[in-house]
């Protein structure tokens, strides 16, 4: 019996107790899981005293411990899923309910390896992808995840259809979705990761995704977050890119009471290109926090980042973008933009675009804006006989359209536009 792990704060105890109880039954990687649990115990949940969390307070959400999410009856889930948008994109999909794979609801693709981790059993790749850092939530996920999606695209393989991984939560527990995507040399693929909640329960999703793009790989990653209005969602996307690879991430956040998206991209090969697009719509008392880090570690790397937010009600949004250019990364080109539209008096935005440049032959720019719908544009539309409400919603929609257009899956584009219009016209936004 290994020694008990001592946490630094009492709110970690239920999670460590769960680890002690379940450790032996969890699949694969016992040493890594234990190291991760110890790391989590030593770090503690982040607090607003951490510079990276100064605008996002997890404490009220962690007051009550979340039980591990229980399995849900398949048929009931199937019925309810049918009524929700963004569940059937007309492409192969892997469905996980409360962190467990549900083969009855899934339709795995042909030609590429895509399945749940328990079935694939490739623990070495998993262990290689995992680098225990100073991220307590990621460590907690590593310690406790039950299952996850494993997608491997072989060298030179061009996947025709997108692969849709759907993580569904029902009930009020905590789940640890885990995704590992390995794109081989010169392969091409589009992946969609969806997170959604059935019902209005307060639950906790703590997700980790690793994306490894080998030399010359071209990968698009779409994250669609439509969690329930009470949910706590924390997600980490770690990307490692080889030479001349191209990764595009589309991060769309619509749901959850508190959502934290962390994206860490390491451009480790010469000529790697990365595009980070993000769109967040918040209303009511929602809080969304996007935290991106782009690490230019090799020469001739390019990154383009554009995050846009529309804030209504008493919602709050945080954007923290960090670009690091290492001393060897000459000829780096990095562009970062964050634009925010405030629709209500009480919405709050905190934005922190950062550049850390250690090389000299680089071109880096960043910008952040916060503003309202352009009054002159509204006036122009009104002078053409378009009503005030309609003019405002048209302009608001236009604000997001470039990001929506960039999403590579048509089914998502259509539904996103429709959902946005509905929200705009319903006065929800």
């Amino acid at each position, binding site marked *: 019996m290994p020694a008990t792990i001592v946490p630094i704060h009492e709110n970690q105890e239920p999670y460590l107790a769960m680890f002690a109880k379940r450790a032996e039954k969890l699949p694969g990687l016992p040493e890594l899981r234990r190291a991760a649990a110890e790391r989590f115990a030593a770090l503690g949940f982040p607090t607003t005293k951490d*510079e990276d969390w100064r*605008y996002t307070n997890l404490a009220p959400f962690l007051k009550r411990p979340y039980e591990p999410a229980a399995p849900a009856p398949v048929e009931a889930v199937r019925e309810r899923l049918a009524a929700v948008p963004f569940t059937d994109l007309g492409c192969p999909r892997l469905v996980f309910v409360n962190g467990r794979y549900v083969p009855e609801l899934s339709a795995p693709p042909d030609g590429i390896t895509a399945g749940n981790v328990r079935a694939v059993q490739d623990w070495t790749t998993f262990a290689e992808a995992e680098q225990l850092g100073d991220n307590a939530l990621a460590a907690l996920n590593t310690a406790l995840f039950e299952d996850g999606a494993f997608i491997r695209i072989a060298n030179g393989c061009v996947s025709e259809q997108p692969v849709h991984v759907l993580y569904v939560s029902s009930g009020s527990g905590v789940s640890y979705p885990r995704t590992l995507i390995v794109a081989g040399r010169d392969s091409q693929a589009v992946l969609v990761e969806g997170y959604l909640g059935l019902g209005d329960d307060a639950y906790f999703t703590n997700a980790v995704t690793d994306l490894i793009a080998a030399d010359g790989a071209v990968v698009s990653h779409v994250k669609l977050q439509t969690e329930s209005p009470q949910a706590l969602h924390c997600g980490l996307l770690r990307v490692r890119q080889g030479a001349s690879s191209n990764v595009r991430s589309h991060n769309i956040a619509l749901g959850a009471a508190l959502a934290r998206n962390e994206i860490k991209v390491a451009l480790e090969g010469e000529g790697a290109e990365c595009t980070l697009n993000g769109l967040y719509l918040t209303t009511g008392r929602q809080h969304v926090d996007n935290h991106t880090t782009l690490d230019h570690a090799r020469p001739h790397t390019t990154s383009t980042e554009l995050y846009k937010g529309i804030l209504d009600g008493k919602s709050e949004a945080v954007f923290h973008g960090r670009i690091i250019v290492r*001393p060897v990364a*000459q000829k780096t080109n990095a562009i970062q933009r964050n634009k*925010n539209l*405030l*629709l*209500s*008096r*009480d*919405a*709050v*935005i*905190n*934005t*922190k*675009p*950062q*550049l*850390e*440049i*250690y*090389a*000299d*032959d*680089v*071109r*880096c*720019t*960043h*910008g*952040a*804006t*916060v*503003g*309202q719908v352009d009054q002159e544009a509204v006036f122009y539309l009104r002078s053409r006989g378009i009503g005030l409400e309609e003019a405002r919603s048209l302009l608001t929609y236009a604000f997001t359209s470039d990001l929506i257009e960039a999403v590579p899956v048509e089914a998502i584009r259509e539904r996103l536009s429709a959902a946005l219009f509905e929200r705009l016209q319903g006065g929800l936004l």
Partner: protein
Amino acid sequence: MSSSTDQIQAFTQQEYKYGFVTEIETDSVPPGLNEDIIRLISAKKHEPQFMLEWRLRAYRHWTKMTEPKWANVHYPPIDYQSIVYYSAPKTVANRPKSLDEVDPELLRTYEKLGIPLKEQEVLAGVAVDAVFDSVSVATTFKEKLAELGIIFCSFSEAVQEHPELVEKYLGSVVPYSDNFFAALNSAVFSDGSFCYVPKGVRCPMELSTYFRINAKDTGQFERTLIIADEGAYVSYLEGCTAPIRDTNQLHAAVVELVALDNAQIKYSTVQNWYPGDKEGRGGIYNFVTKRGKCAGVNSKISWTQLETGSAITWKYPSCILMGDNSVGEFYSVAVTNNRQQADTGTKMIHIGKNTRSTIVSKGISAGHGQNSYRGMVKILPGAENARNYSQCDSMLLGNECGAHTFPYLEVKNSSAQVEHEASVSRIGEDQIFYCRQRGISTEDAVSMIVNGFCKEVFRELPMEFAVEAQRLLSVSLEGSVG
């Protein structure tokens, strides 16, 4: 290419021009800091009771604080008990009545620095309150200013002669509990400048002060307080140079500005403390708290700074925009060469309605210099129609330097418009090539481009400083690029 590399070497290896130590007998207290030292400083300066109590409160608070570590700078730990907290030239007991009575050694020092103290009355129309170490030695133009009711004197004098103003405004912008270095300064500050411009008076000349650190191992703790009463206007210049020294010296100054209704304060700085040698030995630690409060409606505070010196600069001149329609401005050029580190920027806190702020920050890094911009724009819920524009550009000269930006934008009012833009780049080879083919040497081309890069900021400096600023910039940088 090789000739320009040689030029680089020649320039970057240039020794600090203004390094020398003046040997004048000084009257110092033993090193270290405790309540007795503070009582001793206060007694030496014949301060009223409220000052002593304020200093002691600050000291007690300071002992409970820890040194901040968040800045993007690195330096060995400072031993606060080995610093001499007070040193005054011996001449303090019988103050000179005119410039002729000033210690000639001291005057020669100023001449070496290029301060035309003697000619000032005739020439520049600048009243200089020259601070030599910790006690003011000479004050000029005082009578002229006094006619208008303007009080411009050393802080010690102000404490003696205008205690009611000092008591009212001291710590009203930077309370002693504000931060570690401000608390330290509040406890031990030796002297500084005090300026009060009464209602409706427009100060007819640029007020200026030169600070120098002289006695070995004496931390200089300056305190400046400027108050512009309703409708007043004042422009204040501050410039500094310091002699070569091996051990690092701590400089923790506090500057407080108060602008009442319709008042305007313009504060300009040229900072050229000793930056340390090529290997980063020696040099001044410049940990400064500067803050202005636009307390009244339609008031305006404008900060302009050129930071070329100091081993480490840690400085955020800020504006609290309380009054409706008040305006805050920040224009900065920060240069880091060799092993210099600068973490500088501003805070604009919008509280009143229709408040506006502009931030223009230019960072230039060469050698192993690390230059960070750290700024915060905060729009509070009551700040209707607040407007902010920030621009911070960095230029990299050399491949071992760094430029960083850490802006924080916090917006709590939807009618606000906030814009932030930043860019990092180096001088393009095509730009140099263009100049060269027009017969301009690489040196001149670089100097031209750098000066153009900083023009927006230099434009804001008063005439007297703009010239010095350009000279300083070329001395600090010329030849750093090939």
